[in-house]
Structure formats: C-alpha cells, structure tokens
C-alpha cells in the first residue's frame, strides 16, 4: 500500500492507483472530461490538473500514479483558475445552442461550467463553425461536430471496448473531427455506445433527436430483453410512449455499454402487429371477441378434451414468475409434464443438469473472466452476446486474460485470442474430446495416473486427433492457474447435443482435477433461458432442476402446491409435435413464442399444429403460430408487466414495467389464472412478488432472495455444488468429412429472437437477410459478395444475399435464424444439424439434381408431414 495526502487528508491506496482514484475514495471531486473508467487514460482535456508537491507543473490526476508520501492539492486558487480557464477555452468555440440541443439538461459541459466555469467569457471573436447542418453518420447516429470537445471517449469506446473501429478522428488541431470512414458509419455496429459516452450533444441518437427534453421523461430501470447477458438499461417514456433507452452507467454487468439491440431495438414494443383483443377461430379465420366470450369458448373446448394429453411451450424471454406459473399450471391444472421452453433445440436434461449442478458459476461475469484463461466454445459471441464480448476483449487486452476460441463461426474477438480453433460444426463433441485429450497430455504428471489412463481410454490418443491450434489451446489451459469456460447454446442445436455436453463435462472434470477450478457459464441468446431452466420449464426437471424422477422432490413440491405432480415423464416440444401429428394431443398451449418459424421442418410443424385438437396461443404479437390458433389471448408485452430475469451469470434482476398492457391485453400471470379458473380451479391471482416469494421458498438456488432485496445490481442465485460423477464418457467417433456444404444457424448482431424483427429501427440498420460463407467456397461456386444466392437443402430452399467472409472456414454456410421472411425452418430437418445444403447463384439454373423431398418452403398445403 502507498500512503498519500490529498488536501490534508491521508490515505492508503493500492500501488498503481491514480491520484484521481485516490481522491474519489476520499470523496474529493475532481472534474474530468476525457477520463473514462473503462479506458486507459488519455489525459488530454486537462480538466483534472492538480498540484503535487515538489513538481513545478500541474499534473493530470487521471494519469498520475500515486507515489509513497505524495502530497496532492486539488483546491488551490491556481487550480480553480486553471479549471475555469480550460472551460473558457472549450466554450470559446462551442456553439452554445443548448436550447435546441438534445443533451440540454443532462450535459456534462453545462454542469461543469455551472460548477467550475467562468461566469463570463472574454471571448469576443467569431466562432469556428464546421457545418451548419448536423451530419447523419448512420440511420441511428447523427453528429454535430461544432459541439464536440475532443475528449475522444467515443472513438476509444468504439475501438477499445466495442472493437468495431468504425469511428475515427480526421484532420488535426482545430479542424479535428470525429467521424466514420468517408464521413459514414453505414457499416458500423450501430451500438450507440459512442452516443452514450458523449459528454455533450455532439453524437446523438437520431431516433430520439428533438423528441423530448430529459426532464419530461419518466425513466424506468429495467433489463434488456434481447439476450442472456442481461444488461441493465433505463427506458425513457412519456405518458407510456416509449422514447429512448440509455444505459445505467453505474449498474449491471454492462455498466455504460449496450449493444445495438438494447439501445435501439426496444421500439418493437410499439410494433403494429400487437394482438388487441382475444380472438377465436371461426370457420378458419380469427375473429375478435371479448375476454368473456373467449373464456366461454375455451371452457367448453377444454371440458370436451378432459383426459386427453396436453402440452405447453413457453418462451424463455418471459420473466421467471411467468415461467414458473406456467409450468405449475401445466403440471397441476393440465396434469402433464409435457412442458418445454425451446423449440429450436433439444435439451438433453440428463446431460445438462449435472453440468449445471457441478460447474455452473453463478457469479459476476467480470469475476469469472478475470480468470487466467477463458475458453469460449461455439457460436459467435461478438454477434450473439455483444456486451459479454466487450468484457472479454477488455479482459484480454487490459487484464491479459488468455482468450481461447473454439467455434465454427469466426468472430471479431478471434483477433484478441491466444488460440483459435475452428471446430467443424458436425464434430463438436469430437473437438471437445480432442481438446480434453490434449489438455491431459499437456498436463502430464500433474494428473493422477489412473485419471490419465481413464481419459486416454475415453478419448483415444491425443496426437491422433489434435491439431496445432488445439495443442496451443490445450497448453494454455494446462498452464493457466484458473479457467473459465463460456459455452454457446449453439451446442444444443445438434442431435449430438447429449454427447457434446458429456464431452464438455469431461473437459470440465479434467480441469477440476488439475486444480483450475473451472467456472462455466452458458452464453444464452434468450434473456431468461437460465431462469426458464431454474423454473423447471423442462419435461424432465422440476423447479430447481430437480429430476422429475426424484420421488422425494416431486412429493415435496406437490405438497407445497397442494396438488400431486404426475410422475409420468414429459415430452419435449418435438415429441409433443409428434403427438399432435398422431392425433393424440388435446390442448397445446403456446405462450410468447412462434414455433412455426423456429422449429425445424416447417411443413411438419404446420401439419402438427393443425392436428392438435386445441391450439391456444398467448402472446403480445400476432405470430405465424397464432395464425393457426383456435384461441388467441392477448398478453402484456415487454415493459407492460414486472418480474425478474435470471441472466447468464445467474444474476436475478428486476424487469420493470413502464406502462400498462396495451389495448385489452392482460398480464401473463392473470391469463394463466383465467385459464386455470375455467377448469374449475380457484382464481388465485397472486402478484409477481408473491410468485417470487414462492420461487424463493421452493427453488434452493433462489432461497433468501426477495424482489425488494434484489438491489440495483440484482442478486445472485446460489449454486448448489454437487460433485458430478468422476467418470469420463467415451468420445464420439470422428465424423466423416461432409461432402456438401454444412448449413449452420444462429443469431446475428442486429437480430436475436423474433422480437427484434418487429423493431423498426433495427430493421433500418440490419443487413438484409444473408447467407455467409468463405471466400474460397464462394469463388469455387462462382458467386461473389452481395450476390443473391439460393441455399437449398433436401427439404427446401431460400434466397438470401451472399456475405463473403474471408475468415470463414470452408465447407460451412451460415444463415441467421431470425429473419422471418427467410423461413429458414423450411430447410432444416428435425434431428439433423448441421444441415447439408447446396448453394448457387440465384437465377442460375438448378445445377444439381432435384433432391428427394424438396419443395417450396411457401408450400404449406397438404397437411401431411414432410419426409423426415
């Protein structure tokens, strides 16, 4: 520790702290502009100058590191004069157009001048003017250079934190201006973090421009609904009208950052295809009715189906309370364990639950990635969980965390990684087995003899399967003191998911034996996926991820619920669809999700949904699935009901409503009660808080939590460490090299889930629907960047714009899942992933022989399941 004196007060601080940080600890305020906690100091604005005894000149406190015995003064007349002088100089050319500036009222320059500025300027000469009209850098970012004070926070955020390197600085001296290449930010991430950190009204949000004065906004702190990172944000609304999002600088995993989806993608709540009133299907068309009529109709139909199988599917984008109540409703009122929360992948509960119980780290991401090495498996974290990626970049650059990337898709983060291995999408389990074997080999003597032998027996000889990249990765893992593993849910898409998770378990187990205390977290693309699992929205697991087969758990829960829980194992959504197809499904209850868009084999799904006796859809938006429903119940949308999300970190955070449900929509909880009451169950109508209380009582990981106690940063659920069995699963056989291109899917930067497609703003900045592949494959196929191409599988085809990516591996094509218009699910086959496809220039004659079972995706007629 270093002891220093600031303004007469003594204190001890960590070596390496700056004078500014030390002053902050004493509550001494030093004004700053260019200083930004997350960024290396720039020390260019000169606002933070202080006196240091023994030094002739004033020193920038933001960049001056404390030294033993240092005596600092921050409040002398010279300092006051200097601060005032810096502000006077900044104002000399500042336009002072505060009345029409969006930033007026929340401008750092205004505040600083109030606090430290000259009361009167001596400047009399004409001001410099860059331009008279603001410059529209992108659809969402607009610039007024005249107001810029050159703190460079924006440019540094863009390069150092976001990694986009889209903003830059042109010219020099007085002409210095922040801008994009050739004055455009057309191809940036549009995350708007530059706008967020701009202290003045230079960089502005175009959608919000001239919309409001900050003091007219009612601000609500809540959680972003777009991915599992779970960023905190603040919604600004006026009389219930959504106006803007800004980040809450002090709190949450993200602090001041957000990605484009969070900052600009919340306008989906204003989308026009809201369901306004309940509807029932009459002669094949949906007809608006009152809630009472809908109730009568439903009661009649449900009564008729009593005793038939039922099933429920709900979106993991809904709050814990809603998810919890839904599975409870299904398990008690509908007396079935047929309940699931994903329609895009299978969830091998038997392999998943031990992983979560044994390794899931319910701790701040920032802490987790502070580990020596971070292994990121699968997906594309840059596009799928952008804010998580910012933290990873920061860890790699500033904290020297070794970043290891193992995935099929390349990402921007690869550039900061120490080892990158492109795994074949049909060989995920195999790649993990190879990595584990290589780690075991690299660790050598550090492992107990028996374990090495066991691992060898399970995975085979490492040399035979590992490549140079794998070896580098393995030795980094073996050398690291501690390891974090971040896993994309990409791994669950494949029918091999069970084997893949088992191999992941092997690797984690091995790392644990080596003393690396591996901390694992998933990188979910849905805001409350972990919550959904914790809430027991799974056919084979009860709340708390307790096995349904566990009689004791079932009995206890049944007792608490006052209702026996059926012991018969439930079906996952795919199996429920099978049941529908067989004509054996009574009511199928779908909440907040659109399986017709997302579940593989659109034809089959369509036919199955048609074959269900009673399709109930509860949603805020009119989805394609709702179009097939017998009953449609309008539910509150995001921002219209409160609750909690559990993010990737296992952090429970409050999602707050900022307006009442639109039109005749009702809270999801209220609708469940409404439905339950139809089946002669008493109406309970608990509040969200009461439901949370029940969760806290019955789900061990949530014990002790309460909505009031969540605090500004949320609160962490608790891991229930259960040592997993120390057995190693045998590795899957090496897959044959694919003869055709392999189609993989996932999320892209601008869209994630189907809510985002309802955001007008995201649609204006997003790429057109695209298919991405390597330059080599494109060249071989005679197609080039921007060309429309046809991607054709055995089941169907789609047309999209080609995006050539020089870093893409050969043999792989990526199409984002989230463009409804692409009807990607029409190409995918159930139980098959990656999907073999051909790609050709659109308009070119179909060079390949027609494949069996191919059909136009639009062709939904027939009502019979497609070949599978």
């Amino acid at each position, binding site marked *: 520790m270093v002891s220093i004196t600031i303004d007469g007060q003594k204190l001890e601080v960590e070596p390496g702290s700056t004078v500014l940080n030390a002053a902050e600890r004493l509550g001494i305020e030093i004004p700053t502009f260019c200083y930004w906690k997350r960024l290396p*100091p*720039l*020390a*260019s*604005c*000169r*606002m933070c*100058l202080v006196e240091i005894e023994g030094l*002739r*000149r*004033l020193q920038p406190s933001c*960049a001056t590191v404390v030294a033993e015995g240092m005596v600092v003064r921050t409040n002398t007349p010279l300092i006051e004069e*200097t601060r005032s*002088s*810096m502000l*006077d*100089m*900044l104002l*000399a*050319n500042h336009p002072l157009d505060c009345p029409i500036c969006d930033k007026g009222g929340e401008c750092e320059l205004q505040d600083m001048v109030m606090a430290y500025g000259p009361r009167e300027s*001596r*400047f*009399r*000469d*004409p001001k*410099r003017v860059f331009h008279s009209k603001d410059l529209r850098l992108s659809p969402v970012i607009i610039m007024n250079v005249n107001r810029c*004070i*050159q703190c460079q926070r924006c440019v540094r955020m863009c390069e150092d934190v976001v990694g986009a390197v889209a903003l830059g*600085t042109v*010219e*020099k*001296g*007085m*002409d*210095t201006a922040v801008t994009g290449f050739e004055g455009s930010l057309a191809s940036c991430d549009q995350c708007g973090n530059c706008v967020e950190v701009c202290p003045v009204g230079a960089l502005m949000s175009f959608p919000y421009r001239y919309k409001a004065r900050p003091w007219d906004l009612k601000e609500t702190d809540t959680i972003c609904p777009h991915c599992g990172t779970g960023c905190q944000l603040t919604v600004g609304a006026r009389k219930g009208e959504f106006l803007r999002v800004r980040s809450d600088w002090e709190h949450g995993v993200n602090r001041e950052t957000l990605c484009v989806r969070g900052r600009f993608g919340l306008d989906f709540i204003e989308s026009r295809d809201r369901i306004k009133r309940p509807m029932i299907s009459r002669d094949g068309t949906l007809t608006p009715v009152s809630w009472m009529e809908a109730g009568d109709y439903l009661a009649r139909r449900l009564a008729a189906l009593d005793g038939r199988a039922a099933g429920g599917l709900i979106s993991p984008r809904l709050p814990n309370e809603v998810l919890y109540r839904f599975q409870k409703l299904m398990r008690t009122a509908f007396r079935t364990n047929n309940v699931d929360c994903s329609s895009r992948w299978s969830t091998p509960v038997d392999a998943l639950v031990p992983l979560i119980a044994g390794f899931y780290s319910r701790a701040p991401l920032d802490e987790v990635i502070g580990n020596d090495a971070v292994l990121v498996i699968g997906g594309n974290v840059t596009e799928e969980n952008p804010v998580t990626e910012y933290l990873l970049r920061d860890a790699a650059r500033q904290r020297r965390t070794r970043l290891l990337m193992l995935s099929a898709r390349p990402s921007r983060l690869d550039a900061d990684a120490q080892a990158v291995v492109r795994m074949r999408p049909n060989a995920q389990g195999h790649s993990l087995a190879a990595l584990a074997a290589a780690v075991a080999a690299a660790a050598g003597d550090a492992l107990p003899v028996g374990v090495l032998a066991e691992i060898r027996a399970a995975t085979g000889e490492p040399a035979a399967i590992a490549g140079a990249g794998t070896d580098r990765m393995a030795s980094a893992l073996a050398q690291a003191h501690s390891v974090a593993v971040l896993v994309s849910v990409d791994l669950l898409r494949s029918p091999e998911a069970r084997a893949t998770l088992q191999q992941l378990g092997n690797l984690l187990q091995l790392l644990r034996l080596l003393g690396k205390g591996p901390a694992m977290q998933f990188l979910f693309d849905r805001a409350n996926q972990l919550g959904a699992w914790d809430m027991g929205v799974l056919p084979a697991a009860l709340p708390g991820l307790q096995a349904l087969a566990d009689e004791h758990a079932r009995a206890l829960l049944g007792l608490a619920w006052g209702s026996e829980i059926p012991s018969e194992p439930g079906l996952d959504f795919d199996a429920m669809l099978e049941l529908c197809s067989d004509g054996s499904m009574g009511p199928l209850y779908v909440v907040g999700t659109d399986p017709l868009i997302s579940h593989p084999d659109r034809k089959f799904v369509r036919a199955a949904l048609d074959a269900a006796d009673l399709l109930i859809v509860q949603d805020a938006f009119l989805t394609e699935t709702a179009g097939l429903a017998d009953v449609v119940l309008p539910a509150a949308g995001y921002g219209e009901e409160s609750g909690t999300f559990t993010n990737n970190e296992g952090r429970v955070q409050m999602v707050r409503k900022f307006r009442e449900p639109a039109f005749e929509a009702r809270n999801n909880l209220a609708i469940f009660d409404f439905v339950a009451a139809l089946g002669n169950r008493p109406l309970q109508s608990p509040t969200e808080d009461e439901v949370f209380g029940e969760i806290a009582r019955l789900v061990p990981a949530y014990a002790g939590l309460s909505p009031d106690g969540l605090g500004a940063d949320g609160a962490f659920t608790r891991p229930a460490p259960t040592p997993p069995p120390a057995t190693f699963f045998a590795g899957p056989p090496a897959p044959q090299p694919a003869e055709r291109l392999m189609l993989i899917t996932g999320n892209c930067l601008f869209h994630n889930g189907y809510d985002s497609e309802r955001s007008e703003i995201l649609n204006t900045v997003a790429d057109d629907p695209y298919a991405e592949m390597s330059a080599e494959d494109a060249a071989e196929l005679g197609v080039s960047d921007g060309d429309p191409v046809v991607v054709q599988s055995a089941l169907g085809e789609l047309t999209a714009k080609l995006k050539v990516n020089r870093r893409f591996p050969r043999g792989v094509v990526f199409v984002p899942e989230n463009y409804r218009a692409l009807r990607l699910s029409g190409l995918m086959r159930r139980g098959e992933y990656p999907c073999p496809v051909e790609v050709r220039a659109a308009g070119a004659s179909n060079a390949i022989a027609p494949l069996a079972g191919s059909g136009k995706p639009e062709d939904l007629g027939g009502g019979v399941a497609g070949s599978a």
Partner: protein
Amino acid sequence: MFEPVLLRNIDLPDGHLLSSYEAGGGYEALAKVLREHTPDEVVELVKQSNLRGRGGAGFPTGMKWSFVPKQSEKPKYLCCNADEGEPGTFKDRIIMERDPHQLIEGLAVSGYAIGAETAYVYVRGEYVTAIRRLEQAIAEARDAGYLGRRVLGSDLNFDVHIHCGAGAYICGEETAMLESLEGRRAQPRLKPPFPAVAGLYASPTVINNVETLACVPHIVARGASWFRGIGPDKSPGPKLYCVSGQVRRPGLYELPMGIALRELVEEHAGGPLPGRKVQAVIPGGVSAPVIPETGLEVGMDFDSLAAVGSMLGSAGVIVVDDTTCMVKVATRIVEFFHHESCGKCTPCREGLNWAVKVLRRIEAGQGTAGDLEQLEMLCKGIFGNTFCALGDGAAMGLRAALEHFRDEFVAHIEERRCPFH
C-alpha cells in the same frame, strides 16, 4: 578558426558517396567500436563526453541510452529524428543531403551501444533529396557490409529503414513520432512509460536527433575529453547553427557550443542588411523565446540560454531587423503553432486558436483594450498545462514578445493600425 567536425565533408562535390566518406576516414569509428568496445563501454564513452541532444531538449545522450533495459524480451529500436520541422532549422537536411554516411555510421555505432538491430530514420517527407541520398547511402553501406547481417564480420546485425513523414511538425515530438511510425495519427503519448522502456511497438526505444547521432562517431574516434574540450563543459561539442532571416550571410555555421550570439550574428553571419539594425533574435527555432538586441551577449548553449529565459532548441537562429513589425512576427509564430497543433489537448488546440484570433485583430489595427491582458491570460492557461511541449513553446514565444515588445503591441491598439505600414 574552428575546424569543422560535422561539416568537414560538406563542400566535397561527392560528399554523399561512400567513397568520399571512406576517403576521409569514414566508418573507422564503427570498425573500432566493433573491434575494441563492448556496448556498455560505448554508452559510458558517450556519457563521459557530456553530449546533449541536438533535437531541442538537450537531454544527455549517454544517460538516455543507459535507461534502456539491458535484458529485454522484445527487440530494441533506434529511431532517428530527422523530421526537422522547427522553423528556422535546416541543419539535419544538410547532413543528410551532403554527408549521409556520417549519420549512418552514427546510427550503427549507437545501435550497437543500445543493442538495437533495427533503426528507423523518420525524415520529413518534403526532404526529397535528403531521402534519396540517404536511401542511396543505406544501399551502399549494406553492400559494403556496414549494415545488414554480421556487420564487418562481427556479431552485430543492424539495419536502417527510412520512414517518410507526410507533413506534420508534431512528428518531431518523440512520442508523436512513435505513434506516426506505428501508423497512427501523430499525437504525443503519455509518459511514463518512457520510450527507453516502452517505445516503438512497446519495445525499448531510443530516439535521437540527426546531429546528435552524427556526433557519436567523432566521439568514438577522438575521445570523450576531446569533445568536452569544445565549449562549456556541461554543454560541450561542436554545434551547428542555422542562421536565417534578415542578415547578410544566412547559412549553416559549425562553431563551438557556447559562442556568443552576437558573435554568431554579427561576425559569422555578417550582421544586419545595409542600413538596418538588428531588432531581435530568435535563438533556437520559433519555440525559443525571442531575445531583444540588448541580450545578444548570451552564450549559445543550453544552460546559458535557459538562464536568460530562452533556449537553444534546434539552434535555428532567426534575425529580425528594425524594419519588421514584431506583432506580425509574433502572430506568425502563434499561427504556426496553431496550424501544427495536433489537437489532442484542450489548451493547445483551443487556446492557440483564440490567441491567433486576437493577434490577427491587433495586427490589423482592430485590437481593443483588454486584448493584451487576454493574451496574457491565455498564455497562463496554456503554459505548463499542455500535453506536450508544443503548446509550451507557443506560449513562451508569445509571452516573450509581449514582454520585450509591449510598446509595439500597445501602439497597434492605440493607433488602430500597424505602425510599420
């Protein structure tokens, strides 16, 4: 008569060719060093010589070299500052054009001393002839085994590359130069870390001026005490003085450090033009505060000039005679700094802009009462508060003009016109 050291080949018709350089004993110092000295001994020798940097700041060269860590995982670099942008300065250009091997030998010896295998010479882009000559000389030196792998059969690997500037005075500031070499906008870097520890590509780096490096082979050849015997002991050596402006014989003069400014201007450079009188002299490029005629007795070395509130800087001596308006000179100087400000820090970027506006007004006869106080206030806000020394240079220059030639400023404001027109 002082016998030229650095300029001894300057008038040879083919002085830039290897053959001429070798004929005058060129590269013998390099051979001697490789044969007889360890790198540490060379550093010690340069320390003993009291050689101080000729780029402007006058930092002791041997001491700078000794900051380079002996053990380093990263390669070390030597950078030669040949960006020569200080108005009134042209010495480095003349060395590179007429005696480039002198610089290359200096680079090789210095590279050996600090353990660098690569040197970059950052030459301002306007110096096309110098660049060509240097390129040619590097090629010749490579062919002759003075550069490249196993220099002169020793274990030294050392090569020199040229990096052309593209018109930015700030690149002369050493950390801005490193940024520029790394392909960024040339804006100065925070120190610490100092370049000797983490400079180019975050590797240990020494940056020296052309003239500084050119001195090194002579110190090796003739010894440290010979060098210290020339001029003041604390600031010794042969020195190149660039004389320009309103004098009879502008030109480059090599004379001992510490020579009186008056002797330099009046004797060597021939004094003022016929019928005129010297009004003021800027002794070290426009960053150096102006000295009125009455102060010309000062000795031209780092310490003597600092003692009178000016500086030796790059020894660009600009003579201003009594027909010239000092307000105009001051305005032009501040305009220069304003134009060349990199824009990083507030006081330099904004303060100089403000000062220029006021100065232009005063010069045009539109000054108002209070303008001079405003300029003084600006100088106070700028001086000592800027990120690098560019802003300081501007503020010091303006302050000196306001102090020594206040009457002229006042006359402009009171008469509402320039008295010289």
